[in-house]
């Protein structure tokens, strides 16, 4: 997934991707509703996932793919239509989870499925290395948009001298509301279903923007177009000179579902993966309102984006499990209180919860986790030097918390995702000297299949929500 950095202009130097593990087959929807499903397959986020956790996963993938380290990033641009809160910046937490410098500039594009295009432009227009992350998990009424919603995230490391150079960008805006909207206070996207109005608007706005790109339209090899369903890119394509094969190369909605703002970004990864060196790739973002962003790329060397492999991975879940995981089948609230951990207490420990920052005793060199209190080995009460543990460790002890047995903080998650395993994980310091243990919840696995000795790797997930604030931290997934 890496670029060699021998390109000729600013563009995409490396990419990252994240798709939730659970997949819902369209046949399940067809069986339930008695009508053809709008997509063949959709990715279903677990109850402990959201746009933020997926953004971090994709961002981490991009950072591990390229030549740039987290500390090199000067700008973070994020895009989603489903931020965890309607008001409150969420880029800072993504930056903290990825270990970016606190001085990075951040922008957030939201409120439109065109946000992915806006974030990419923000990255290209910034100075220095930029990380662009587009993550989304739209929701819809189970009888309507909910039948096609998916989820996923794409990340792009943007830098000078990239292998995938952005050669031109265009925009088109016009007053055309009501194609896809979410009312204030609602979580579900709705559509008015005025078929001709919708199709015509999408086709005209997107094709107008793309037509203005200063590229040779006859040599375009792959195109990622607005894709709430598989037919829409081809309908847009009727107004453009691209062949059906080029459009198919950038269309992933029938594999991941309608991933909102992330759909075209993931489609762009698929397009990049599909083309040969010295190709032209186009992305056409669209958002109701309406606005379109057209991007034209010259691909010197196509990066391995991993889309095909990621699409083929995953695990099929039955329709009721998908509805439960999404929270469609009601939500619960646990009354009462006790053992409350305050928000400042939690925030004090985020370096440990996000990045496993352990402590090294300055006197004896032992590793302590968390890095607080007297040294576990020599008892010294000195300030620890922070030393990160590897995100991959080994299960030292494990159990399964069965349905109904979870602590109150985890009741709703367990109701949606089922029994979960809780382990004591042992991980070595990244510098190789010593190790420490910590308790951790396991996720994305059959909890009963995990044994002492298994290797597990950390992923940022929602831990629990209290007083409206979601607390995030690493959970672990078997290798």
């Amino acid at each position: 997934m890496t670029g060699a950095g021998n390109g000729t202009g600013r563009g995409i130097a490396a990419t990252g991707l994240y798709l939730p593990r659970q997949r819902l087959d369209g046949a399940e929807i067809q069986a339930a509703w008695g009508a053809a499903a709008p997509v063949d397959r959709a990715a279903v986020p677990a109850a402990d996932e959201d746009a933020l956790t997926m953004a971090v996963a994709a961002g981490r993938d991009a950072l591990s793919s390229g030549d740039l380290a987290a500390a090199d990033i000067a700008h973070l641009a994020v895009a989603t239509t489903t931020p965890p809160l309607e008001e409150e910046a969420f880029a800072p937490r993504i930056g903290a989870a990825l270990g970016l410098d606190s001085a990075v500039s951040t922008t957030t594009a939201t409120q439109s499925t065109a946000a992915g295009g806006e974030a990419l432009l923000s990255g290209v227009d910034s100075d220095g290395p930029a990380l662009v992350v587009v993550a989304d998990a739209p929701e819809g009424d189970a009888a309507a948009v909910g039948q096609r919603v998916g989820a996923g995230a794409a990340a792009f490391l943007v830098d000078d001298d990239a292998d995938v150079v952005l050669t031109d960008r265009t925009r088109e805006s016009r007053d055309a509301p009501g194609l896809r909207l979410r009312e204030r206070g609602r979580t579900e996207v709705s559509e008015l279903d005025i078929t001709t109005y919708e199709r015509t608007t999408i086709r005209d706005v997107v094709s107008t923007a793309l037509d203005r790109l200063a590229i040779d339209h006859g040599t375009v090899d792959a195109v990622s177009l607005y894709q709430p369903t598989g037919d829409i890119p081809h309908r847009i394509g009727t107004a453009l000179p691209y062949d059906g094969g080029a459009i198919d190369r950038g269309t992933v909605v029938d594999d991941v579902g309608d991933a909102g703002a992330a759909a075209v970004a993931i489609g762009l990864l698929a397009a990049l993966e599909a083309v040969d060196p010295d190709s032209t790739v186009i992305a056409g973002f669209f958002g109701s309102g309406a606005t379109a962003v057209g991007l034209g790329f010259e691909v010197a060397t196509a990066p391995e984006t991993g889309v095909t492999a990621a699409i083929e991975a995953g695990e099929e879940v039955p329709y009721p499990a998908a509805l439960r995981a999404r929270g469609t089948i009601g939500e619960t609230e646990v009354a009462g209180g006790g053992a409350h951990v305050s928000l400042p207490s939690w925030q004090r420990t985020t370096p440990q919860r996000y990045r496993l920052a352990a402590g090294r005793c300055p006197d004896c060199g032992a590793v302590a986790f968390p890095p607080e209190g007297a040294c576990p080995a020599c008892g010294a009460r000195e300030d620890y030097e922070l030393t990160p543990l590897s995100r991959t460790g080994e299960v030292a002890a494990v159990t399964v918390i069965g349905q109904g047995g979870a602590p109150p903080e985890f009741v709703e998650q367990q109701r949606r995702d089922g029994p979960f395993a809780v382990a004591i994980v042992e991980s070595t310091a990244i510098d190789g000297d010593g190790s420490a243990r910590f308790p951790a919840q396991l996720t994305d696995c059959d909890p009963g299949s995990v044994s002492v000795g298994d290797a597990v790797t950390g992923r940022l997930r929602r831990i629990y929500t209290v007083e409206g604030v979601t607390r995030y931290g690493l959970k672990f997934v078997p290798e």
Partner: protein
Amino acid sequence: MTDAYIIGAGQSDFGSFPDRSYRSLFDDAFDEAVGSVDGDFDPADVDEAFLGTLGVGGRQLGLSGPAVTEHLGLHGIPTTRVENACAASGYALRQAVMAVRSGMADLVLAGGYEVMTDMSGDHTKWWLGVSGETEWERLSGTTFAGVYAQMASAYLREHDATVEDLSRVAVKNHGNGAQNPHAHLGFECTLKQATSAPDVAAPLNLYHCCPTTDGASAVLVASEAVAADLADAPVRVSGAGAASGRVGLFQRDSLTGIPASETAADRAYEEAGIAPEDLDFAEVHDCFAIAELAAYEDLGFCDRGEAPRLLRAGVTDPDGDLPVNTSGGLKSKGHPIGATGTGQVVEAFAQLRGDAHVQVKDPAIGLTHNVGGSGGGVTVHVFERVEEGEL
């Protein structure tokens, strides 16, 4: 320094009594303790009280100790509430022993109480598991059973032990508890039932876990002079050991034992001048089956990894060489958190005076072992029979 003696011990019924208050339950325990005193006991002679409770449910979170002694009519005496999770009243006893040995008090009430079964499911969820390490352990999503299950997973991996060995603890302790009229779950169970029950936190199933229980227990601790005056057959507290441990299991070097139990036992044995081989019976903290296995090893009843062998060979059965949990243990008798530590003393007192429901043959020395949380605080007490006329 005077020795400390138990001259009376009693408990309420252990069980589910959602309409009973913790104060009325303690009244029962106190009355039974007073009733067990050989001589003429005057409640006005109690100098001080140490009462253990976790405070499940919140209730009278502040000053719950005085609220209990006030209910008994013990007005004016200094009363201290002791909180060390499930070891609360083990530590209350320790305080009482210290008060008597120091000479500050001649007659001290030690006890504990807890009401756990009168709350909604939601409230119960909040309160169970508050004794684990909160910031990391609890917020990884684990429960109290989960932490002990993690220990069990490591134990089964490290030693030649099976889930069936865990179930043997339940079979033995239920067999004993079935004879105890105060027991919460006073029924017998078969090995098949105890191995095929649904999982609570794998590998621990329902029969590997103690119940949540309402109840109270009370112990009267006296100086030598008072014991000589009021008791025909008092019981000497010949060893009082205690130790703290890392509150979170993950912070300990061993995942298969409780280091604080080992330390507390060493201290108690040393003070009593005995070795584990000298014990005639033991009441150990079997909140979960794995805890009883770990206790055998931590308390020196056998080497590491040998606990299953003891169970298989019946060594800890009532007719074995070292009967353990003749009361039924936490598993069958019940585990009203704050009442458990002194509840164990009720059994030790009865055994050494020949009054136990499952009586060990002519015991002279017994032990109680009380664990807070998964091992953050432990008390071990050694008790010795005092022959009539010895004082």
